[in-house]
């Protein structure tokens, strides 16, 4: 496993963890990588803020509101967190 793959797996695990309060593990596993998270999981703006808070905490990086568009799908979240 390349380090890049490992980093993406770690990022995905962090995202799953941050979404844990909103969906079951099964629901998260059935999410398509390019599905819109807020629509698929029916997250309102407060839910989304909780998600961002959690991600900020586990990654140790403050996520600004201007970054929100980059957090729209699982894939884009992973890209964002792994700095791509």
């Amino acid at each position, binding site marked *: 496993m390349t380090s890049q793959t490992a980093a993406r797996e770690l990022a995905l695990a962090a995202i799953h*963890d941050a979404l*844990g*309060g909103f969906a079951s593990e099964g629901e998260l596993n059935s999410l398509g990588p390019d599905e819109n998270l807020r629509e698929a999981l*029916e997250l309102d703006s407060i839910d989304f803020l*909780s*998600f961002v808070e*959690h991600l900020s905490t586990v990654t140790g990086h403050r*996520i600004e*509101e201007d970054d929100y568009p980059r957090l729209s799908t699982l894939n884009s979240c992973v890209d964002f967190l792994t700095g791509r």
Partner: protein
Amino acid sequence: MAQFVMPSLGADMEEGTVLEWLVKPGDSVRKGDVVAVIDTAKAAVDVECFTSGTIGEILVPEGEKVPVGIPLAVIAEPGTAPVPAPAKPVRARKPTRERPPSKKPLASPPVRTFAAQHGIDLATVHGTGRGGAITRNDVARALTTEPRPAPAVRRITPYARKLAAELGVDLAGLTADPVRARDVRAAAVPPRHRAEPAEPRPREDRDDDAMRRAIANLMTRSKREIPHYYLSTTIDLHTATTWLRERNLQVPVTERVVPATLLLKASALAAKQVPQLNGRWLDNAFQPGSGIHLGIAVSLRGGGLIAPALQDADTLGIPELMVRLRELVSRTRSGRLTSSELTTATITVTNLGDLGVESVQGVIYPPQVALIGFGAVVPRPWAVDGMLTVRPVVTATLAADHRASDGATGARLLNTIDRLLQRPEEL
């Protein structure tokens, strides 16, 4: 002497189940104390006492479902001697069972008796019989696998037992007597993270049909009785969103405020300035609200809607309003509301912007007389000083009761919201 009756926790409630008593005869209570947990079609509600005094007799035991208005307990008010409770009042009708038959675990009467004798809640037993029916063997198995508390010494309320099963709490580890739901909650493992701070009631625990029926009855009543009129305006949020963005850049992520908070605060202040829309229509007359208690329409995961009140919303600063909003939404979704939150709203706000629609023509919650709606904040072409530019805008709508107010009053409310949102720093 006062009687504590099954409260009406909203215009759509006809009956409720006493899930748990938090007081016993002889206990002193003060107005506002939570004395019982009542299950409605929509939520388990912490019901507050309406008066101060001493609890006399408990008239309706835990687990029983009775119509609204039936006395549940007798309260001796201060200054009056705690006289013996009057004879048990005649019930309006035979109390129905705790759960609708369709939701009740399948078990034959002898099995039920067997389970009851051994203190086993059938809801916690896995049935292996035909059609998932619970057999005597299933109960026996539950008896041997479930850690048993010291027999016949401690009492555990049915609600506490059910919660313990839901939350995975070992009842043997609890020392309270009787063990109540709050003891179980205190012992429960904290939820995974703060997105849902209150303990969630599992979805299957709610009767979705009952929730749907309650909403159906209330909305039908609204459309049948209330002559609605509708107004709509589009508000430029350039100033408000710019101000909010600057503010959010300067605070920790945990103190970030979402735009909906500004819309709610502006609505509360506008309702204060246009009091004709803040209150209730009762007995063919408008009764002004005794404060701005903003009903917040909260959609539940898995369907359904509850609109609890954010009390005195006009007096809360933006950061505090945001905290209270998060907390209220979380408790609404986990089914932990108080009776006053369910009964005091004076005007309701529905924000459908998160669902991506641009506007909502709402249905008023009777007996309220107005409902404010917001759609999504979207970038749109906008004329400023004769020049075309792009601005973030939101469509604000008002559904109002024409018996209580006229269009000119409604227009004043929407225009006030617009004006307030142009000065976000003053909200």
